[in-house]
């Protein structure tokens, strides 16, 4: 997913400011959308809270009034906006804890998993794409293109299930899920290695699932560039293939890949939902999967807002990076 909008002759600063304003507007839209969507459905957490708890009925009625939501929609909306700005996303139905706390404690796990996978898939995928383009129509090209297409066409969580059964259940080389071993007092480096041990399979799953996109984009982008004149000149000068590739063709072809990586980071944050569920990886994805089983509406609302904000932010970042890196953009 590429934004290939050219800044034209508006100057870099103006371009960036325009992009920031656009992002802000989009964020506002998401806020309104979020509010409207979730106000349509309500449920009764109070009664359910006390089911089977042997508490007198009058007491429950009192608590229900205390939690009452009978103000006008408009008042509720402004309350919602105010609360969101204060990072108050309400209380999770399932855990009865503040949604913000739940989300914050899940972020590091997802950032670690998604970060590693995004980097690995970008690097491996790009390298694969370069090789495929350079060795166009040879067996290497076909192998890489077909291989990545196959991985791209399968449900990512299904790949995860296969890897889990194969390497964790049958071979026992890796744990069956989670982020750390049970009952371990491990600290420091031992803890880190334990975590690496647990992150290996889910990271492998995501990496394989996403490297297809990088490979294909790099390949076609490189093929485009390879048709351009300055490369012929470089070859004519007698430069070795590898050098022509690495010093001249690749850097220019990498431009879309850089922006792709940045944008993808925002999306991959939410793309790991099913994979985290399969591996019980305690991140945002698993939190989402658990919230769905409710539906734990406050959690879903908060997570949705976070995912959208992440994408908006990274898109903005990619646009700015593109403006900076592309030599064709004019200075202020």
């Amino acid at each position, binding site marked *: *997913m590429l934004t290939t909008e050219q800044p034209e002759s508006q100057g870099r600063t103006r371009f960036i400011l325009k992009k920031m304003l*656009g992002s802000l507007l*989009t964020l506002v*839209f*998401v806020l309104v*959308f979020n509010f409207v*969507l*979730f106000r*349509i*459905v309500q449920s009764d957490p109070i009664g359910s809270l006390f089911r089977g708890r042997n508490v007198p009925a009058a007491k429950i009625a009192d608590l229900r009034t205390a939690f009452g939501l009978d103000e006008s929609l408009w008042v509720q909306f402004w309350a919602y906006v105010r609360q969101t700005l204060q990072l108050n996303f309400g209380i999770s139905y399932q855990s009865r804890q503040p949604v913000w706390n739940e989300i914050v404690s899940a972020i590091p796990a997802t950032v670690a998993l998604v970060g590693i996978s995004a980097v690995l898939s970008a690097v491996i995928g790009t390298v694969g794409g370069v090789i495929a383009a350079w060795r166009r129509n040879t067996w290497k090209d076909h192998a890489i293109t077909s291989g990545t*297409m*196959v991985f791209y*066409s*399968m*449900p990512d*969580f*299904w790949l995860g*299930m*296969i890897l*889990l*059964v194969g390497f964790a*259940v*049958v071979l026992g080389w890796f744990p*069956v899920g989670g982020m750390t071993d049970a009952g371990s007092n491990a600290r420091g480096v031992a803890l880190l290695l334990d975590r690496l041990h647990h992150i290996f399979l889910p990271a492998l799953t995501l990496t394989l699932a996403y490297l297809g996109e990088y490979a294909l984009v790099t390949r*076609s982008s490189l*093929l*485009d560039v390879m*048709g351009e004149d300055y490369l012929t000149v470089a070859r004519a000068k007698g430069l070795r293939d590898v050098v022509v590739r690495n010093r001249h063709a690749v850097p220019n072809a990498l431009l879309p890949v850089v922006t792709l990586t940045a944008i993808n980071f*925002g*999306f991959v*944050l*939410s*793309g790991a*939902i*099913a994979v985290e*569920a*399969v591996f019980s990886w305690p991140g945002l994805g698993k939190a*989402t*999967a658990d919230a*769905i*089983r409710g*539906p734990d*509406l406050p959690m*879903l*609302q908060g*997570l*949705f807002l976070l*995912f*959208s904000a*992440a*994408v*908006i932010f990274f*898109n903005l970042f990619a646009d700015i990076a593109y403006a900076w890196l592309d030599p064709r953009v004019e200075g202020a």
Partner: protein
Amino acid sequence: MTSLAMQRRRATAGRVLTQFRNSKPGVIGFVVLLVFMLVALAAPLLADVRELNPVFARAQGNPQWAAPGTFGALGTDHLRRSVWAQFVWGSRVSLFVGLAATVLTISIGSVVGIVSGFVGGRIDSILMRITEWFLVIPFLPLAIVLASILGRNVWNIILVIGVTSWPSTARLLRAQVLTVKQRLFVDRSRSLGAGNVHLVARHILPNVSGLILANATLAVPISILTETTLSFLGLGDPSSASWGKTLEEAFVNGAMVRNAWWYFLPAGLGILVVVLAFTLIGRTLEEIADPRLGQAR
């Protein structure tokens, strides 16, 4: 339609067919797809639908968690149901939802894209703004939120996928329409006083139809994969047995821990193969519609 136009159309169709036949990946994809369509259509002949009913399965004396070979082509699950039956009947739901959702996606996307590109001006800006917004919102969380609120049945899933996937189609078509529009201004028919509808119907649509078809074919995989993911997360229709639902049941009922690979491997493979088939066909159609792409392949 004038006979000249008809002739032109037939010639184009013939050209497309020939090019398609010459593309190996395209043909492979087409054949594979045909096989799965036949399986889906012939489901009643291939597997007894009553095998999907756990009460029937138990009454038949089926074993639980039987491996393939010991009972049936693909064994049984935790409720003693035949996995082969689930695979065959699941293909129907997965394919149906995939195609229906794509029809919805393409319809919305095409209308928005064509109107936006053709009319231009303020309407274009507004529509493109909306498209941008939808493109930015992460697709899966949006689908999850909508599905959670709307409730879990097949039609809601189709609606959800359609409503979240149309933006990229809209953008693509708008770009194409703009290109065609440029050529049109050179075209004499506007100077001859032709009206808007005529222009759209006679000139724009034929020129973008190839792209629409290619895009549609490539959108089906996305629809299928989205339905699979949504079903896996528990948002699918509880009473319909799509491949995604099979994967969900396998996961939730501990198929992985007992290494009951026969429960989740076939459904996933089915999805993989069908998606690949559509992708191959779609890419081939794309090349035919826009030959420049062919050189970059």
